[in-house]
């Protein structure tokens, strides 16, 4: 397949947070309007739309485009857990790359209730048996990193400190207050070793991206070099898909490893070519695991990566300069596209106080129920 280039012609975001007076359709409208304005695209200017969402209900994306007077094109709602936005991006990018469409609108939105997400994933008996709490699975993975990757409680806390500090400069983030390592470690213990400050909050928000075969009006141009989504292989009892059992000693490649391998191959790039990354940090441990799985350090090197400050702003490979989900919160269907918005602004040099100097190539990554992982690689020029 001789694919055409895919440009990010415009992006838009509705802040992530809590908006009791706005319904989810309004959130989506706001992000879509902003992205279309950046791209200078109106009705007739895009030939398909994909909407990532998990819990919004029937015809979610249709309601947004109906309210904006922009319907008529194919509109498809896309669900792949917390990777829904990444899945929508991969479908839209493929349609532009293949020549099926010239311009595609991709957006995502969510309005999550407060507290632990009551996932529709588990059968009722699993919930009744106490086997459903997501933070407990996150905690097991963090503990495994402590056993196998030299990760300490201090490292877990430092990830949270870094992301909260980065979030201070992000006007679209929910939490914009810095915190100290002591505060993170001293916060309420949710599931040992994860404290409340090491876990992200499901919240509300929306993000939108216009993909096009031609660069958008705002320069410099930014291209999507790859956008992949992959599901889990059988074998591990600790994947995001949380099966009730796995096989001792068999760790098949994770969805993230599968999606990253495919993305790097498609982009003809490797981890060393990246100037910064936005990765899934549902919890502090997940960020470190993401770094390992994406090949940004050696397997088992997660503790050293944090210890050496590689991912700090100004470090060799800034991780989540936006503040990540830990400071932005996680509106499921929107979170992956929120990363793309950040990447586009950074690669254009328009990320203001968050700007990673000279950023030219970046990667975005999410993980979600299913299990799914999505990886996108964007490049300026």
């Amino acid at each position, binding site marked *: 397949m001789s694919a055409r280039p895919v440009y990010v012609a415009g992006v838009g975001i509705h802040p992530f947070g809590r908006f009791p007076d706005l319904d989810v359709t309004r959130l989506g409208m706001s992000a879509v309007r902003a992205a279309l304005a950046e791209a200078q695209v109106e009705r007739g200017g895009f030939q398909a739309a994909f909407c990532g969402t998990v819990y919004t209900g029937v015809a979610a994306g249709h309601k947004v485009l109906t309210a904006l007077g922009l319907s008529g094109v194919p509109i498809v709602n896309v669900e792949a857990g917390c990777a829904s936005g990444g899945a929508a991006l991969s479908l839209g990018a493929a349609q532009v790359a293949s020549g099926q469409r010239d311009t595609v609108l991709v957006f995502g939105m969510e309005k999550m209730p407060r507290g632990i997400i009551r996932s529709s994933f588990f059968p009722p008996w699993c919930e009744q048996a106490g086997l459903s709490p997501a933070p407990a699975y996150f905690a097991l993975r963090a503990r495994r990193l402590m056993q196998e990757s030299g990760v300490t409680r201090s490292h877990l806390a430092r990830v949270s400190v870094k992301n909260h500090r980065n979030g201070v400069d992000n006007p679209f983030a929910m939490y914009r207050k810095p915190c100290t390592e002591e505060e993170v470690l001293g916060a309420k213990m949710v599931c*040992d070793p994860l404290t409340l400050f090491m876990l992200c909050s499901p919240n509300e928000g929306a993000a939108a991206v216009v993909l096009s075969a031609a660069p958008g009006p705002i320069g410099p141009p930014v291209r999507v070099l790859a956008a992949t989504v992959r599901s889990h292989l059988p074998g591990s009892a600790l994947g995001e898909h949380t099966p009730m059992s796995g096989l*001792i000693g068999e760790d098949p490649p994770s969805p993230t490893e599968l999606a990253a391998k495919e993305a790097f191959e498609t982009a003809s790039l490797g981890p060393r070519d990246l100037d910064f990354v936005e990765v899934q940090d549902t919890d502090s441990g997940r960020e470190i695991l993401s770094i390992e799985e994406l090949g940004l350090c050696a397997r088992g090197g997660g503790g050293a990566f944090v210890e050496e400050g590689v991912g700090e702003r100004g470090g060799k490979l800034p991780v989540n300069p936006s503040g990540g989900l830990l400071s932005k919160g996680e509106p499921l269907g929107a979170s992956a596209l929120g990363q793309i918005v950040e990447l586009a602004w950074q690669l254009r040099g328009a990320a203001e106080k968050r700007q990673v100097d000279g950023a030219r190539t970046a990667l975005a990554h999410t993980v979600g129920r299913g299990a799914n992982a999505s990886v996108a690689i964007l490049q300026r020029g």
Partner: protein
Amino acid sequence: MATRPIHEGLFTKPDDPRGAALLAGRCGACGRHHFPAAETCPYCSAETGSVEAVGATGRIFLHTVVQTAPPGYTGPVPYGFGLVDLPEGLRVVTRLAAADLDALESGLRVRLEIAPLCTDEEGNEILSWAYRPDDGAA
């Protein structure tokens, strides 16, 4: 007031001559175990399997403590939660019971326990399973 399992087919009944055990599926094609038992092998898609009693004992691989009751759960909190390696070559997600939850650690030998976890709306006792540090008695 009756007693019923939290779900059918997860573990042996109190009078089972095999004693307390989890009911795992074993694939007739690839030989691998999975839990809960399913008709289709999740590893190789074969549909020729049997059910085996496994996991009377095991060792903790990873653990944590859940401090707040998740939605749908009405048993005691805090409670232990983790992965236990079974001698049959299987690793299972499980609740961990212990007099002292701080004493849980990787490698610890544990024993399967099938006991009431909560009661339903009609007052029936709901049996579930957990692994508990093995005191050596059997």
